[in-house]
């Protein structure tokens, strides 16, 4: 634990998050267990041991590690050369997670202020800040929990899910995103910890969104979370990964895997707005398998981070399946948001729709990378992709990489891309109505994002707006 000096060494990594150079952020020594730096077989074994996992999970993890070593990093996409595994702690003991502090008062003032300005509920602030304190408004949670239990809904953190529902877990785990899928999915499979486990039984509609922060387990917003969501036939629900404030992490590598199974006739939505601190490499695999007449919707907002690579996808496996992606990416100075979607049409009469909105500012770079694939025999499949980019200044950059593969004559695929620049005339016009220049710019940006933002529950839309205002502050030279 010699690396834990009086002034926490990782505090420096928070730079850029709040534009503050110095944090007087202290942690006591011997506060938590964490693995050594780097990714090794020993680390993986230790993780499984500490969690008391069944043998099959240990084997799965070790196999995933081998796969990762064989695969190596992707040779396309953003520059990841600064991501050095030898500097990363791959496991920190649950409930005493790295970056966890034992009281709210130890969180840097700047971070607390940001949460307050964002209007993030205090309970969520504490979780985001990594405070291990107990949730205070437990009443609300308990009421919802009772309701879920009555409906037969399982909503747990993933580690608990594995313990309490081993058979259900094993049946679906890693069936959507196997470790062979891609390098970062393999890394996640080897070292995963936390995430949500959701099962909604046949025909059940959950009226209130299932929100991850209700789980309020310190490990839930981990580095390598693994979320598994199963919608039984005819079920209908909305899961929200609430994380609109700068996720306060001293770790610079986040690689999650989200697996969703939408069984026949189900309707599942997954929404997340993420705002990682500006030092984080955010490399996430999100995928849904969509069966007969089921519908899957991803709403994905990417703010913050240093590099994000994230392509929510829908595998439309049976007739009448529908997939949707609405995504927002906001790249400011020094950031690269490489986001997009994948729509795989493997059955007749499947439909998909993608709306992607990106904003680039300063040296920020937003890319849309999307795949639409229509398999042979997927008759009358229809897909429509629309990506709009907004550049806030001369320096900002955007790229679009659409990949379209059609192997079916009756398919109908549309792709539309627009790039626009922040319009001086619009800014002037809004200013003549009394709005300050940065307010005018923020309003234009919000308007640009509106088609996506209006799909969010109100409180998240409000937070998104506040967040954009924060990003826009200081835009005016």
């Amino acid at each position, binding site marked *: 634990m010699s690396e834990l000096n009086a002034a926490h060494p990782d505090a420096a990594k928070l730079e850029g998050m709040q534009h503050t150079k110095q944090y007087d952020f202290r942690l006591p020594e011997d506060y938590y267990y964490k693995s050594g730096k780097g990714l090794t077989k020993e680390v993986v074994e230790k993780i499984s041991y500490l969690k008391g996992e069944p043998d099959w999970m240990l084997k799965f993890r070790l196999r995933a590690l081998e796969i990762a070593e064989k695969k190596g990093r992707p040779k396309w996409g953003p520059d990841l050369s600064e991501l050095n595994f030898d500097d990363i702690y791959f496991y920190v003991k649950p409930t005493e997670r790295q970056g966890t502090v034992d009281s709210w008062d130890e969180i840097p003032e700047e971070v607390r202020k940001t949460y307050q300005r964002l209007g993030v509920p205090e309970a969520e602030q504490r979780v985001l800040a990594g405070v291990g304190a107990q949730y205070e408004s437990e009443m609300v949670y308990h009421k919802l929990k009772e309701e879920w239990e009555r409906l037969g809904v399982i909503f747990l953190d993933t580690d608990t899910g594995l313990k309490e529902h081993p058979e259900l877990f094993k049946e679906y785990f890693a069936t959507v995103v196997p470790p062979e899928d891609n390098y970062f999915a393999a890394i996640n499979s080897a070292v995963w910890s936390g995430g949500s486990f959701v099962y909604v039984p046949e025909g059940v509609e959950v009226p209130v969104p299932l929100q991850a922060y209700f789980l309020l387990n310190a490990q839930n917003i981990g580095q390598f979370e693994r979320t598994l969501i199963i919608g039984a036939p005819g079920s209908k629900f909305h899961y929200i990964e609430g994380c609109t404030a700068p996720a306060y992490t001293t770790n610079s590598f986040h690689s999650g895997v989200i697996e969703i199974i939408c069984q026949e006739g189900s309707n599942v939505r997954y929404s997340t707005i993420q705002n990682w601190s500006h030092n984080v490499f955010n490399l996430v695999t999100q995928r849904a398998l969509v069966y007969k007449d089921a519908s899957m919707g991803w709403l994905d907002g990417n703010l913050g981070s240093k590099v994000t690579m994230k392509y929510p996808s829908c595998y439309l496996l049976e007739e009448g399946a529908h997939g949707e992606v609405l995504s927002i990416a906001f790249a400011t100075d020094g950031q690269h948001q490489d986001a997009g979607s994948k729509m795989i049409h493997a059955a007749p009469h499947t439909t998909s729709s993608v709306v992607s909105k990106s904003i680039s500012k300063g040296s920020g770079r937003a890319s849309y990378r999307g795949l639409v694939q229509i398999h042979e025999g997927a008759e009358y499949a229809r897909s429509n992709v629309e990506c709009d980019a907004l550049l806030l200044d001369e320096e900002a950059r955007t790229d679009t990489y659409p990949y379209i593969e059609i192997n079916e004559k009756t398919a109908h695929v549309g792709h539309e891309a627009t790039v626009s620049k922040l*319009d*001086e*005339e*619009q800014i*002037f*016009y*809004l*200013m*003549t*109505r*009394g*709005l*300050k*220049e940065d*307010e*005018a710019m923020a*309003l*234009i940006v*919000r*308007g*640009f*994002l*509106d*088609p996506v933002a209006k799909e969010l529950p109100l409180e998240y839309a409000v937070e998104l707006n506040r967040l954009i205002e924060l990003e826009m502050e200081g835009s005016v030279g």
Partner: protein
Amino acid sequence: MNDKTLEIRDLRARIVGGDEILKGVDLVVPRGEVHALMGPNGSGKSTLAKIIAGDPQYEVTGGDILLEGESVLEMEPDERARAGLYLAFQYPVEVPGVSIANFLRLALNARRPEGDEIGVMEFYGKLQKAVKELNWDESILERNLHEGFSGGEKKRSEILQLLVLEPRYAILDETDSGLDVDALKVVSQGVNAARGPDFGCLVITHYQRLLNYIVPDKVHVMVNGRVITTGPKELAMELDQKGYDWVRETYAPAAAQ
């Protein structure tokens, strides 16, 4: 000069780096009066409007703009707006995804001290009144600012905003252009509703037609970057009958060359 005026004093201006467009404009609009500014195409009327509002495309090379005695030249467009100036644009821009109601709420709150946002009832009261004044349907408030609006609807929106924001001085830049008679009547009705002892207005128009509906207290005629004459409302009629050549020859033989 009376401190309850908008005064343009010997104003000279050009497009940044370009030729001079305003060559010494003198004009005074007292609060409580409506003045018309007429003139041929290219005389600098719209340029004057944009410069008063603070358009950064232009630079002022001489003279001053005084809002009740205070120079606004160093003020940003938003500061001018909050100080009580309003420009109804000739070509209002579209701002996709921003509803009129939402936009007006922000604009009203921008005029109030922080933490003293306008109450919901008061806000909707204002909007309803303004919408009614313009024979409009309330559903317009939920539409995005000028997105998919016809030319006439855009002009109507400019007057709607005027009624809600209640500026002390408004400049209407060719609000009549492109309007049919019915739309013209509605827009004029809106402007007339705003008239009162606390409201000064400069109506820029190319044609006399608008002035049948918004009857001005005075008429200024601008030719080649200067106001060459000012007269009673009858001047507009005379101008309409005799044309701009007549006014040039009569009042500014030098400018006519």
